[in-house]
């Protein structure tokens, strides 16, 4: 019987689980393959987060510090799990850094992989330097450099944000909606207008999914206060006339083709299943759901269960998730893991 809990992935979900366990006096081992903790918001340098407006480095950085300073959390960065054997209450994991971890339960908080825009060549990423992703724009803002055209560093006068890049697209086998990119795009659009008030920002959409309370704060506000223009069109191609990017598509509301010059085109990239998921599935003996994320055993019973007893899952590993929901799921997984230890003890 081992009381410690193994947490794989130190993003918002894993950090939340480790902190929750420490608060109830439980020891955990948190491992992350990256050299730093913090997950996507830190590793990819996000700027101000939806919906709090706090800088990622403060909000998520704070979660990292809290865990780093806690003696109940043993952290291994730059490490993955090589093998995982045993049964609930008594698992053994071999890490790539040579360490052996004994744990009564495990939480997989391995997150997602950013969609690689090279897979949609018609939208110009990789061909034209001024076609960038939302992640790059986040970095331009969070680094303090401001939003500029990578080709020559000029301030863009016209920016197009293309939604659903790498999501909702059967051509590339991705049927899911990545859930947060509409809101993130509206947020970035407002930040661009704040920094560059003379810059026109257009968002090309199929649907706007600024769900729940984000409707007011992001969709309505971006239109009403920041005059962001939303055009219902899925862009057909992005080309260049040598000086400007040329965006072509159909403005579906007026049944008319559009060909518009832009300085900067931003891909609102989606959240793919973690590229490691197949390896993770075989190492931990858990199943994937049809899109390739880690499958949850049930929706309403015990939260966060995978298809293997004693192994739990939280955050974007289960599908596109927001940070706050990932944190909530991290807490839920911690509680379920504790519960499973209690059950294992009772039967031991």
């Amino acid at each position: 019987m081992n009381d410690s809990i193994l947490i794989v992935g130190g993003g918002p979900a894993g950090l939340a689980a480790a902190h929750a366990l420490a608060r109830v006096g439980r020891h955990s081992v948190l491992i992350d393959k990256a050299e730093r903790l913090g997950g996507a918001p830190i590793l990819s340098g996000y700027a101000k987060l939806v919906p709090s407006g706090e800088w990622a480095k403060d909000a998520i950085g704070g979660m990292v510090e809290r865990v780093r300073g806690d003696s109940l959390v043993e952290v291994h960065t730059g490490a993955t799990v090589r093998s995982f054997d045993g049964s609930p209450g008594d698992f053994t994991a071999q890490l790539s850094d040579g360490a052996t971890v004994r744990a009564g339960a495990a939480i997989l908080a391995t997150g997602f992989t950013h969609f690689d825009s090279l897979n949609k060549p018609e939208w110009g990423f990789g061909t034209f330097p001024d076609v960038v992703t939302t992640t790059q724009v986040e970095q331009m803002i969070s680094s303090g450099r401001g939003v500029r055209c990578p080709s020559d560093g000029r301030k863009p006068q016209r920016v197009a944000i293309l939604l659903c890049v790498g999501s909702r697209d059967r051509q590339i086998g991705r049927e899911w909606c990545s859930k947060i990119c509409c809101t993130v795009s509206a947020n970035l659009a407002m930040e661009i207008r704040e920094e560059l008030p003379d810059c026109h920002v257009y968002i090309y959409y199929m649907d706007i999914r600024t769900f729940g309370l984000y409707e007011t704060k992001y969709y309505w506000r971006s239109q009403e206060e920041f005059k962001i223009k939303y055009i219902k069109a899925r862009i057909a191609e992005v080309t260049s006339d040598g000086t400007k990017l040329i965006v072509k598509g159909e403005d579906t509301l007026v049944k008319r083709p559009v060909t518009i010059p832009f300085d900067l085109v931003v891909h609102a990239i989606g959240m793919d299943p973690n590229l490691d998921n197949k390896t993770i599935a075989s190492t931990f003996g858990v199943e994937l759901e049809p899109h390739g994320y880690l499958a949850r055993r049930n929706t309403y019973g015990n939260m966060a269960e995978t298809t293997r007893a004693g192994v739990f899952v939280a955050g974007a590993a289960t599908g596109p998730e927001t940070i706050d929901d990932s944190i909530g799921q991290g807490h839920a997984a911690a509680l379920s893991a504790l519960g499973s230890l209690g059950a294992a003890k009772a039967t031991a």
Partner: protein
Amino acid sequence: MPIHEKELIRPEDLRTHEQLTVDGVDVSGHWSTFIRSRVVTDYNEAMQEEVAALPGGEFIHRCWQCGSCTNACTVNAVNPDFNPRFWIYLVRMGMEAELLRDKDIVWQCVSCNKCTHICPRDVNPEGVMKAISHWLELKGHTPKSPAMVFDEVFSDQVIRRGKIEDGRTIRRFFARTGQALQQDWLIEMAKRLVRHLPIGLLARLGFSAAIAPRTRDWSRARAAIEEYVQAEHAAQRSALGLDAPDSPATTREGA
């Protein structure tokens, strides 16, 4: 771009060469007919701000194109080309040339405000229709609409006297829109008024028509209102990038 619907092909975009040989093949006449792409490059990005600067147009940028206004619209029910949702979009996106194709029907809005009461975003589409008509006039795309002339004649009376005299309003309106004063419906209305109105009221109507009294001590109020109206007109014209305001004296007759 593919052509989605035949109705989108406009005659002015059809091109035919009388004499044309391509790679040695004679494609003269209708064999060479092709449709010019309808790509529009002349976006007027100032258009939304311009319309927003005119009374009623303030909230145009809120529109999310749900179409509730057009569905509810009184005029649309009679004339499907009357489409407030569509025009709001054209203005927002700066598709000026496209809007001008409908310039002669925008003013037909009857201000029933059905659209206003159904709009989920509080765009005030009725006001926007007014602002767009106004914009078309100020930019010289359309002559003053009868509705606008009536508004002017009406407010002119109020400004000059602090009172309205209906007969005078109607006479001036007809004169300025080139309509005959002897209209069957008007004669009929006058007859019935005479027949049915109490004598006292008739006498007062007759008195106002003959004397056109002013509200007492009106001149200071009038000066203030005129100054305000002039300032508003100047602001509107400058928002539209037009120079000197058209002075009220040139558009209004003497009292």
